[in-house]
């Protein structure tokens, strides 16, 4: 018999290194004579798309398009150390460093422009659509490229180096009291499953994931992180297990260490909540790790909802489910 159930899982996650470990990212920015720009950062893009996020941050600040920005990363001869691509920290932390760096370069640019436009301060100067000019005064505008090139002839360059250090304080080692991480990212997911009571097989039919991202800098990438996280969560909950015998891995192969295939993944609805984190770039928090956390709980709770057994050890294999069902039938505790 096939029975369906729905489960809910919530989670939280302190991003960044935490517990007082210095969490520093750095970035160099250079605005070129043609009005395009380059960012150098040590932050490695491992496929999650951090380079693309950094391009967006710089483009936003300079009134350019993403494709006007060259991001070069992860080369120790050319880029400053930006810490590891882990701890859900690159969008937040290196994002902050990139933002600080571009703002610093921009600030000299604005100073120069203010002088050019005979404005006493930079307050009325804006960068928009590849132009620089006085806000609300169409007569005093010029292409950014012209401004930067003229500046070069005057011996001015717009180059910056900045670092950003995230909040991280140690807890008391005796009591664990303190403020180890900042910021925290929250999320919840629901899973609908179908359990075959004869074979113990669980099929995940639908997952809805709602994650707190502060601000979605790129919704496509947010959805991508969520779907990828949910899928790893499904693997963690149902399939993946390294079998060890006296420390030796019995299944060191993708034919025996099973990860989900395209057919094992349900319809995933990736939703998010934007509640700006004031310390993040444009209000953003990281999402990489949080995206996978609630899935396991949602699935395990859904299995219980479907067939009334509580699986307490992962993965929830068909064997464990049948055994739990048999115990339940015998009237054992479940």
């Amino acid at each position, binding site marked *: 018999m096939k029975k369906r159930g729905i489960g809910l899982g919530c989670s939280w996650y302190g991003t960044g290194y935490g517990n007082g470990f210095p969490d520093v990212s750095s970035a160099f920015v250079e605005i070129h004579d043609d009005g395009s720009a380059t960012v150098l950062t040590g932050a490695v893009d491992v496929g999650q798309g951090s380079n693309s996020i950094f391009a967006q941050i710089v483009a936003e600040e300079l009134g350019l398009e993403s494709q006007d920005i060259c991001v070069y990363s992860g080369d120790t001869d050319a880029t400053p150390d930006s810490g590891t691509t882990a701890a859900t920290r690159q969008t937040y932390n290196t994002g902050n460093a990139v933002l600080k760096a571009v703002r610093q370069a921009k600030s000299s640019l604005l100073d120069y422009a203010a002088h050019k436009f005979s404005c006493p301060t930079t307050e009325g100067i804006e960068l928009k659509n590849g132009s620089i000019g006085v806000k609300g005064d169409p007569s005093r505008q010029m292409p950014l490229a012209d401004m930067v090139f003229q500046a070069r002839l005057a011996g001015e360059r717009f180059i910056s180096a900045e670092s950003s250090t995230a909040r991280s304080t140690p807890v008391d080692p005796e009591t664990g009291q303190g403020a180890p991480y900042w910021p925290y990212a929250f999320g919840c997911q629901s899973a609908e499953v179908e359990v075959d009571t004869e*074979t*113990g*097989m669980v099929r995940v039919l639908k997952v809805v994931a709602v994650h707190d991202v502060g601000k979605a800098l790129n919704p496509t990438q947010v959805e991508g992180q969520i779907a990828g996280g949910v899928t790893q969560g499904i693997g963690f909950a149902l399939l993946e297990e390294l079998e060890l015998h006296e420390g030796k891995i019995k299944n060191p192969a993708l034919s025996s260490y099973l990860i*989900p*295939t395209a*057919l094992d993944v349900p319809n995933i609805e990736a939703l998010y909540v934007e509640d700006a984190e004031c310390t993040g770039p444009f209000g953003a928090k990281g999402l990489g790790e949080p995206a996978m956390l609630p899935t396991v709980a949602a699935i395990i709770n859904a299995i219980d909802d479907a067939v009334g057994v509580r699986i307490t050890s992962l993965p929830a294999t*068909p064997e464990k489910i049948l*055994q739990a069902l048999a115990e339940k039938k015998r009237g054992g505790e479940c």
Partner: protein
Amino acid sequence: MKYFQPHSVEDALEIAQTAEATFLAGGTDLVLHMRTGKVQPSGIIDLGKVSVLREIKITDGFLNIGSMATFADLGKSELVLRNAYALWQACQTMGSPQIRNQATLGGNLGNCSPAADGLPPLLALGAEVHLMSAEKEEIVPLATLLGRTPLLGQETLIRGFCIPLKELKSGFAKLGRRRALAIARLSVAVALEVNENKVENVRVALGAVGRRAFLSESLSQVLSGQELNQEWLEKGVLEVQRIVREALGTRASAPYKRVAVSGVFREALESIITEGGIQA
């Protein structure tokens, strides 16, 4: 290592007789085994260019399937769909599209893994295997062949399979850990005849229960000549569980498989009743 690529069955057999060489069908198992060192042939006879071995056709009351027909060929064949529904089903879920494009039914028998997806349906459908060597040609029921050790002599070529056209209804179900790229943990193929409301000549084959796929005599006895109803089904469930219990003994997988087989058996039968293979 020597490599031969004959274009005809005759050439292939001649090479097999004269050279120390292993037949290569699709290669999805052999190429892997060569890579890991599990198999180290001194020669290979690649059957890929013997086009006659890929034929799927009907002759003299049989569905004839060449040994080099791939799972994808079979899974797309109208003839297989109509006349060997269980096999057709097995071909939809075996491996992945890439594997199905390359792996052949003959290779599936030659490698003869306990979990081979193609064998239970062939057993249930009463398939015979056409074997050839330079010296001899024989047609053996698959059930008989699977009792032999070793399965085949080195110079013996699997020419193809002959499935009798008997208006059988058949169905197949497989239990894997995931929905694609899954090795069968259990597979069940069933074929039967329906006369009015009675089922006759029920043949049930099990895969991944023991060393090789096998046909169950006792299930055949328990289920044949009865009315097709719920009670009949439940009787089959009990019997199939008993068979699995007996076959697996104290193996680690036994406690799970002897229970889970009921679901797989039911699914195989349901696929007969609902999707029928019955249309034909």
